[in-house]
């Protein structure tokens, strides 16, 4: 089972990223995926899982719902599977001169699935709805850069921050203005250089007027803007999509009907693919990855590709556990982890050793940011630990949520640390994700714990700001470095893309000195398919690219 920490879909892999990924594993998807082509029409079934929330784009931040949302919603930009750059989809143009005032022009004639035309107000209304705290949308905070966001938040404390005086002051973002039916403007509070890249994230989808009259009904049967429309959501069983006849965009699919069949175990889906009961599974179970068994089971019908996922091990904040305060101890632990052997033996080469905190699939990635600290060297690791005065605690702990497949690698990681440093290390399971995250959020988890990040949009910024900026939402280790924060702000203000990336990279380099989290490896997605389909491609988000799938 994969971490399930997913946010969006659709690919982006720049030429730069491909070169940087170097080792060749990054592009194996292209090599192995079946030849493009195939006929149009027909229907396919793909593995799905249970959406955790109603299918509203601004309220879905997990994979299961995200995969469906992405197929049925078009956004302003679309992340191209081959070239990495965001391409205009619903947008005709996105212009800015200062990284703070953006003018967006829409293509005319694009329609929602209920036949109404997609207009500027559909975006503005949708984003206001997402940002307005009393609506309780899980990805409302993606609107945070837009001017006026603070006034839409509730200020109260306690169980219901929106009660009484805490009520949000406004329900409209002042930074959003409809100019005419096909034009609107965005003003951000501070400069945001990568805003156009972000606009392909599902939270920025437009919503039809029908949504606002009955959000609950919409969540059951969303009216989207994409190449496929949702026909039926049979709860816990299947989600059926069909081709939208009036779709005029450039990213339409070939097949007429896609059925997400819901599975709770990836083994069952995999066996169904072998038996041709299911066309595509986007997850190969561990049992079939061992010794590359899937390559025998599905010869020439499998693909693997690096995706925008990184696994890290985060240290508890110093005030929670002072034993790991010294960066040298953190670096020593990182150097004591034999990533190559763990990846080979535990993951069967379905991971790539991390050399920094940013995934190679995004623009701005720089290799070896972690340098020698992410290279296995037991002698140096031990020397570094001694330099720091040895490990003060009783034993090193590495906690994980036991309801997903993390036991094997955490145990192997601990064994590696134990053997290299001579300090006892124990992989500690926490019963489930809910308990695990609660302990982290309440700052009660001591020692080290696993953390994963799946990018929302393909930008180096997405791997740094939400995780390591002071007070950021996913900053589980309470990392705070004023210089790091300053570099991020400067990078966001930069109008030159290369300069922005360089500033982000400088910030990332600071992480190697402070080591708030140990980079472990980058994710890869492996898929398999039946002999009925062709043209299966994996996006950088680890999802199926529905524009190229076809029946043979």
């Amino acid at each position, binding site marked *: 089972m994969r*971490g*399930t*920490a*997913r*946010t969006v879909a659709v690919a982006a892999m720049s030429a730069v990223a491909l070169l940087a990924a170097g080792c060749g594993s990054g592009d194996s998807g292209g090599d192995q995926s079946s030849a493009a082509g195939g006929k149009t029409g027909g229907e396919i079934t793909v593995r799905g899982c*249970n*959406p*955790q*929330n*109603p299918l509203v784009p601004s309220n879905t*931040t*997990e*994979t299961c719902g995200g995969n469906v949302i992405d197929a049925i919603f078009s956004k302003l930009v679309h992340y191209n599977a081959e070239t990495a750059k965001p391409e205009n989809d619903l947008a005709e143009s996105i212009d800015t001169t200062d990284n703070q005032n953006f003018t967006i022009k829409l293509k005319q004639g694009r329609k929602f699935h209920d036949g109404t035309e997609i207009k500027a107000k559909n975006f503005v209304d949708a984003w206001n709805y997402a940002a307005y*705290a*009393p*609506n*309780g*949308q*899980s*990805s*409302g*905070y993606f609107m945070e850069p837009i001017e006026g966001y603070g006034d839409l*938040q*509730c200020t109260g404390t306690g*169980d*219901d*921050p*929106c009660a009484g005086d805490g009520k949000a002051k406004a329900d409209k973002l002042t930074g959003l203005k409809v100019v005419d039916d096909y034009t609107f403007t965005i003003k951000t509070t501070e400069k945001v250089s990568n805003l156009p890249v972000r606009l392909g994230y599902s939270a920025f989808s437009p919503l039809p007027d029908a949504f606002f009259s009955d959000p609950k009904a919409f*969540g059951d049967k969303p009216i989207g803007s994409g190449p496929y429309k949702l026909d039926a959501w049979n*709860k*816990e*069983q299947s989600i059926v999509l069909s081709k939208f006849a009036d779709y005029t965009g450039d990213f339409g699919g070939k097949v007429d009907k896609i059925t997400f*069949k819901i*599975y*709770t*175990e990836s*083994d*069952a889906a995999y*066996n*169904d693919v*072998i*038996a041709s*009961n299911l066309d595509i599974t986007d997850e190969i179970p561990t049992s079939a990855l061992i010794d590359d068994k899937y390559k025998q089971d599905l010869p020439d019908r499998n693909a693997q590709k690096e995706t925008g996922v990184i696994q890290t091990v985060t240290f508890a904040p110093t005030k929670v556990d002072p034993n790991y305060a010294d960066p040298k101890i953190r670096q020593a632990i990182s150097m004591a982890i034999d990533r190559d052997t763990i990846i080979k033996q535990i993951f069967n080469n379905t991971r790539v050793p991390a050399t920094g905190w940013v995934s190679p699939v995004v623009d701005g990635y720089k290799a070896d940011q972690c340098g020698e600290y992410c290279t296995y060297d037991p002698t140096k690791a031990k020397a570094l630990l001694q330099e720091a005065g040895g490990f003060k605690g009783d034993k090193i702990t590495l906690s994980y949520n036991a*309801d997903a497949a993390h036991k094997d690698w955490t145990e192997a990681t601990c064994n590696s640390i134990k053997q290299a440093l001579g300090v006892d290390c124990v992989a500690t399971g926490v*019963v*489930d*994700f*809910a*308990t*695990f*995250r*609660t302990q982290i*959020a309440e700052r009660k988890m001591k020692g080290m714990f696993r*953390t*994963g*990040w*799946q990018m929302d949009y393909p930008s180096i910024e997405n791997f740094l700001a*939400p995780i390591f900026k002071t007070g950021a*939402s*996913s900053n589980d280790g309470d990392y705070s470095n004023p210089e790091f924060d300053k570099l991020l702000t400067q990078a966001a203000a930069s109008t030159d893309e290369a300069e922005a990336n360089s500033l982000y990279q400088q910030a990332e380099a600071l992480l190697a000195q402070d080591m708030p989290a140990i980079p472990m490896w980058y994710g890869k997605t492996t898929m398999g398919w039946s002999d009925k389909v062709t043209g299966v491609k994996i996006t950088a988000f680890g999802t199926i690219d529905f524009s190229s799938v076809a029946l043979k």
Partner: protein
Amino acid sequence: MGTYIVRRILQMIPVILGATFLIFAMVFALPGDPVAGKCGERPCSAAYRAAFIEKYNLDDPLPIQYGKYVVNLAKGDLGTTASDTPVADQLKLRVPVTGKLALMAVAFEALVGILAGVLTGIRKGGFLDNLVLVSTLVLISIPIFVIGNVAQLYLGVKFGLFPVTVTSSNPTFYELLLPALVLGSLSVAYVARLMRTNLVENLRSDYVRTAISKGLTKRRAYGLHALRNSLIPVVTFIGFDFGALLGGAVVTEGIFNIPGVGGYIFRAIRVRDGASVVGSVTFLVIVYLVVNLLVDLLYGLLDPRISHD
């Protein structure tokens, strides 16, 4: 007899109330935040959290939460799941599937188990007895996920004799056959050994000896007295096994992708989906009560000396 049944049915009301409260309190006491898993691997926004807690009354103290639940329950409303579908809909969908599966498994274990038990019990220590002993031991010692996966791989994927997974919401007998055999396999061992032991004991008992000495044919003595009397613990076992299969077939359901009750409860506990857990466990309690009543009534039929007054 009639009053006995009425009394038992009346007893169900306090038991159901007690059970829902117990389960409710347990879910309430579970560590961990019910909102934690809803937003992927990142913390949920404060706004989302507030809306979620408001919707499910999570900030109320236990007695008030329970009170609200019982009021709704009395109106026939089992609440909504954390992913916003009515719990009643989920149960309507899953109970028939699980019920069918459990019935098939129980039929299999009863048929094969009792037959094996009788054959070995009559000829204790013979070749057949030892053969059954060894094969039941094999079944006992192989974990169910191994039996399930191997059966699926060979009988389903490789040889194509059975469907690999359940593909419809209303599975056919054929689709559920392999999962039912897998599910019933461990219980077959229990039933066979229980049957054998009881039969052996009863064959030695005075009344069978008396019956035979009085001139009853061996066959009739065995069939009428020994067999019928030996069935009581077996029926008891099958009764509670039926209940266990309804709620506990998590592994088998996962392997064959069966939309059943066991997996539903299991996942609901993990994501702290209180309404789903309480709703489905309440249903299970009702099933146990009914099944146990039936089993108790069967005692009277199997052994006329046992009476319910």
